């Protein structure tokens, strides 16, 4: 019994139960079902983990009461909260504004969930676990992600509410502004690995120095810079705090989601988390070594578990950031993208090219390679940071 | 029974005609531009069809053409819509018939 190939063996065993004509169909149906189940549950437990973690970051308790029906004594630390939330969302009244564009109002949540799920198709979840092997997987991922913008526009327009429409426009401005640094931060990885295939990129990060230091891209100067840019752009792309101003619950009326209630609202919520999970999975694949174990002796743990551990780590980091940072203003948001992230990402592109051109430098030249690459990252960061923060002393509050 | 190549070509020519109707029959500038985009797409479809069923698919000439054509179409859409916005700012209208001040 080999844990590493267990999922594949299970799948093949199930597929073999069907007549050969149906096997192709069953094979893909099974893959889709497993992804939906695993990431549906992952979504459910991300919501409760987020609420509990956020609470702990702010010295609160968080939801701790939802237990099991018929066993009121059993509280289970509230981990069944997402199911209670789901029941609530489903049983709520579905309100559609009288003047709404009914078709678009209905299509928007459906499409946004569908598009946000498409990205999972090309993520390598394990050594042999990749739903669809595509040569141009990264291009596919971003093409699928770009379609969610349409759904947001549909939500804003279909609601026939000027606040919804304005907020949808703001959300789109944010998505378009941050798509650029997101894609630019990925390009160096493509250059160094020489491929667009996620499977090959994950495989390219194998190997360890002294059996302990993994050869992940995040542990190179250009990879580290690209990873930070990727993280910030991911936060903005998935509308998470500190970039959650399109739907700022506390000051706007939830933006383009104003006219949505019940299950449709839950679908938007779900799509947001699916998008975050897919982008985190992409970050894990591109920068954190995908399914590779961090140390050589830890390889006995199956690769798909390593992938999930890293994915959970990314999500926890995002929750941590959400519990820490304040919401940005729209001008600060766009300025951060155009004046800071895009120039750095462009410079980092050159850095990736330098790294791709010098793989055969040996001996003392290795040190020079690292030093030059680090300089390309650090010097512009310091200079740009100094320029952007010039004249901005820590603010003092007169009445606080 | 028609071959896939013929199906490709028929779809492409019908798409071209739909775009033509859009460009000729409608007077909203945006719709006219979209009609032209459709005609461009129909041409792209032809390139892919002839690449796929042509004698030298490995040379990928058709794909190259389509890639460049998509890039040019994106530029065209950006400039065209910017022009429409500029016209709208001056004339408060996007009807083609009203943008006629250069007509003799």
């Amino acid at each position: 019994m080999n844990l590493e190939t267990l999922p594949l063996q299970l799948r093949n065993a199930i597929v073999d139960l069907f007549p050969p004509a149906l096997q192709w169909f069953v094979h893909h149906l099974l893959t889709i079902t497993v992804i939906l189940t695993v990431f549906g549950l992952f979504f459910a437990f991300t919501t409760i983990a987020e609420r509990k973690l956020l609470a702990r970051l702010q010295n609160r308790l968080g939801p701790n009461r939802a237990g099991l029906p018929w066993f009121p004594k059993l509280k289970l630390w509230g981990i069944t909260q997402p199911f209670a939330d789901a029941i609530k969302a489903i049983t709520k009244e579905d309100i559609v504004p009288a003047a709404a564009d009914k078709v678009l109002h209905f299509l928007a949540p459906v499409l946004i969930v569908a598009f946000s799920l498409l990205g999972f198709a090309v993520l390598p979840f394990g050594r042999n676990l990749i739903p669809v092997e595509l040569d141009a997987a990264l291009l596919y991922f971003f093409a699928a992600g770009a379609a969610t913008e349409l759904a947001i526009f549909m939500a804003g327009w279909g609601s026939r509410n000027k606040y919804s429409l304005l907020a949808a426009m703001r959300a789109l401005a944010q998505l378009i502004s941050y798509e650029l640094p997101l894609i630019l931060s990925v390009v160096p990885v493509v250059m160094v690995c020489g491929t667009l295939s996620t499977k090959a990129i994950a495989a390219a990060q194998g190997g360890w120095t002294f059996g302990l230091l993994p050869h992940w891209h995040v542990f190179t100067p250009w990879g580290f810079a690209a990873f930070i840019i990727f993280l910030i752009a991911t936060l903005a792309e998935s509308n998470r705090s500190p970039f959650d101003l399109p739907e700022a619950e506390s000051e706007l009326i939830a933006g383009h989601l104003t006219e949505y209630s019940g299950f449709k609202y839950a679908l938007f919520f779900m799509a947001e988390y699916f998008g975050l999970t897919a982008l985190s999975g992409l970050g894990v694949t591109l920068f954190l070594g995908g399914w590779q174990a961090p140390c050589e002796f830890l390889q006995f743990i199956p690769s798909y578990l390593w992938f999930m551990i890293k994915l959970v780590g990314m999500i926890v980091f995002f929750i941590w950031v959400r519990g820490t940072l304040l919401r940005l203003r729209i001008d600060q948001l766009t300025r951060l993208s155009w004046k800071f992230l895009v120039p750095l990402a462009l410079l980092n592109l050159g850095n990736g090219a330098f790294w791709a051109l010098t793989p055969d430098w040996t001996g003392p030249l290795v040190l020079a390679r690292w030093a030059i690459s680090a300089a390309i990252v650090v010097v512009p960061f310091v200079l740009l940071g100094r320029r952007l923060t010039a004249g901005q002393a820590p603010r003092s509050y007169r009445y606080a | 029974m028609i071959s896939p190549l013929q199906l490709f070509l028929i779809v492409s020519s019908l798409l071209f005609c739909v775009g033509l109707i859009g460009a000729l029959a409608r007077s909203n500038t945006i719709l006219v531009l979209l009609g032209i985009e459709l005609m461009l797409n129909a041409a792209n479809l032809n390139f892919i069809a002839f690449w796929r069923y042509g004698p030298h698919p490995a040379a990928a000439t058709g794909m190259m053409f389509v890639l460049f054509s998509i890039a040019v179409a994106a530029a065209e859409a950006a400039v065209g819509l910017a022009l429409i916005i500029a016209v709208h700012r001056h004339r408060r209208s996007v009807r083609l018939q009203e943008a006629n001040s250069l007509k003799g």
Partner: protein
Amino acid sequence: MLGSGILKGLAVTAKNFVGSYHNPARMVTQEYPDVQPQLPANYRNFPFLVTENATDPMGTMRCVACQICEKECPPQCIYIEKSKDKKPDANGKLQLYPAVFDIDTAVCMSCQLCVEVCPFDAIKMDHVFAIAATNRFSGLLLNREELAKPNTYFHEIRPDEAAEVDGRLAAERAAAEEKAKAAAAAKATAATATKPATGGAAAP
């Protein structure tokens, strides 16, 4: 350097996270239905009517149906009907009493003006905040039986104010008794004085 503030912030929240597990003093959450909140004495919610005696609340109500609170109430949530007969109050004086005293807590805005204007210390603000009802009309419209609460309850929720009110009422009662006594004495002396006076008048 740019970004150092973010790292500092992340460190603060990380400290909160770790601290929340081993330092109970950090936690601010009260687990409400299990742990009842400690309300400050001056917490106020909806008014109640003070009665002297828990065994006979309707008989010993301090309210004399003067209707000042009804007139003062800004959202007009108080409705009072005067009684036809009179009852002796705590001082033994015959007073009217409210035959109907209704407060619509759905309308009440907890402004405490009724308490401020009451000359008889008969209406006070309550500490009860969980007043959910299944019927928003009859469930939230409280009548005088539901509003009446004994003075001992007032002592429980607001000991300082209750003691002060009791002292004042006792002083008034004593003054009233004194006055009554003095009046009785004056009547008596007047009676005795008039007798000698008449006698005196008759004597010469």
